[in-house]
């Protein structure tokens, strides 16, 4: 049995107050393990992104607990929580959120710079990660000069530059055509996933379901089912 990377127990989250209150997560419990690529799927508004935010330490739940590698993250101070995200989590945002005024290499170096690493050293190390995603030759270009698929790969390089244990990908194929999206997630499964890393992907793109280790289905703020994905 692989070690548990994330354990969520009875997580509750609501937005608004009084009559306007909307419950986004209703007592959600799950375990995510190292070495697996776990999908959270479901229709829009089912709470996938909210769950991802709670699990990654950026949205405080209103109930329940989240433990990452055995530590209850929501008991941490805000500074410790920021450090937790910096050292343990890598994010690939849906819209990439690359900095258009920085070069590709500088974008990838951001987590290293946030870790107080020297600028030049960070850029040099960023080149290693750009090499992994096959974009070393594009290092000097600004992200806007890259295609959507290339920007996605830059975002992945940035996410793994901090060598996180957990990689969070929010709708990684939403801005890409079918083939490119499939190729990107396939690349992540082949090159980024390993026994010491857990990858959580929120998606409703059925074309990439075959790449998942496990799929959790969400509906109306609840986990409604689980199924095993394709082979690793």
């Amino acid at each position, binding site marked *: 049995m692989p070690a548990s990377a994330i354990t969520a127990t009875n997580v509750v989250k609501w937005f608004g107050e009084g009559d306007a209150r909307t419950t986004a997560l209703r007592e959600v419990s799950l375990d995510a393990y190292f070495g697996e690529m776990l999908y959270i799927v479901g229709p829009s508004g089912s709470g996938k*992104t909210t769950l991802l935010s709670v699990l990654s330490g950026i*949205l405080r739940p209103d109930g329940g607990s989240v433990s990452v590698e055995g530590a209850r993250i929501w008991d941490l101070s805000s500074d410790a929580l920021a450090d937790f995200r*910096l050292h343990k989590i890598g*994010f690939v945002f849906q*819209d990439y959120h690359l900095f258009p*005024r*920085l070069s590709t290499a500088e974008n990838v170096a951001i987590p290293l*710079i946030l870790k107080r690493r020297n600028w030049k050293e960070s850029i040099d190390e960023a080149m290693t990660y750009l090499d992994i995603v096959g974009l070393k030759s594009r290092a000097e270009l600004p992200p806007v000069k890259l295609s959507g698929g290339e920007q996605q790969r830059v975002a992945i390089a940035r996410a793994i530059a901090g060598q996180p244990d957990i990689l969070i990908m929010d709708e990684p194929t939403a801005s890409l055509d079918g083939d490119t999206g499939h190729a990107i997630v396939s690349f992540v499964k082949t090159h980024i996933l390993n026994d010491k890393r857990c990858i959580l992907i929120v998606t409703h793109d059925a074309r990439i379901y075959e790449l998942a280790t496990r799929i959790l289905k969400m509906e109306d703020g609840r986990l409604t089912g689980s199924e095993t994905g394709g082979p690793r």
Partner: protein
Amino acid sequence: MRGILQLAYKLLVNDKAKFTALLVGITFAVFLMVQMLSMFAGILSRSSATVFNVNASMWVMDPSVQTVANTIGMPDYVLDVVRSIEGVNWAVPLYSGGALVKLSDGTFQSASILGLDDTSLFGRPQLLQGRIEDIYGENAFIVVKDPEFSKLGNPQVGTEFQVNDHRGVIVGIATVNSSGLFGVPTLYTTYDRARQYLPNPRFTISYVLVEPKRPADVARIKQQVEALGYLALTKAEFVDRISAFYKYQTGIGINILIMTVMSFIVGLSISGQTFYTFVLENLEKFGALKAMGAKSRELILMILFQAGFTAMTGYGLGVGLCALMITLARVRRPDYAAMITFQNLALAFVMVVIIAAISSYVGVRKVLRIEPFEIFRA
């Protein structure tokens, strides 16, 4: 930490349009503020030109005198009494007044006349042509070669003119440290000749110039002059009194103040709004940094650095531009009345810091409020 500042720097300067707009706003504001303050400093300095040029340690005058140009005559006994005060090393009279000079071509020109003590010639200017003892010659005047010199028809040694139907002749051409404020040429002569040539009220001593024996004697001299019903001021106090008059008793001070405040508001508006737009446009990126693990204080540091860097660069450019303008103006007009002082620079610096602080405060508030979750929801 340097890496984070470098990141902030790159985010700022790589957005060339915004950075340029920010710099232009602050540079323009600093330029206007320093230019206004420099002009005012120049005016204040010029208003005390006679005090600087004569360079006496103490000045005795009528208490109603507000500026060096507007004199009120004192009776001769004041000079005698001042000379008798314990602690006075020496005391001499000075005549200061205005006159209409009739030039050889028949035109009239206003001039400032300074009559120096006949015995000591204390306060005499530095001569470029002629000898100082020639001032004792018949009808002798020394003209100051300053930017107003040409208004007397560029006189040479030997040039003649008339003052109140008296013949005058130039016996020397001199230079002084500071030109006057009112754009009229200056003539030096002896105290006695000034009294004879110029229309006078009953009392003729404009000022008694005093040299105390020791600095400790200044207070006693002031006290005893006050007992006479007159006023004794040190050089610095007299300059301050003249400056206070121009600051508070004329419209110059308030107008300069209004222009300076307007420059500040213009700078604040342009820079504040541009910086706010800059932060707004980067808000999602700051949110992404927060999600990745940047702490709030690091984001605040980034914004403060960006605002501070822009402010200091704009400050340097603004001061440089002002210095360049004053230098260029002086090429055309050597006595252009503007001077950049340390006080002006310090005041403009404080205003720029306020602009940067207000601009960054708005940005910091926005960045602190952004929730990383918003980045996911977007």
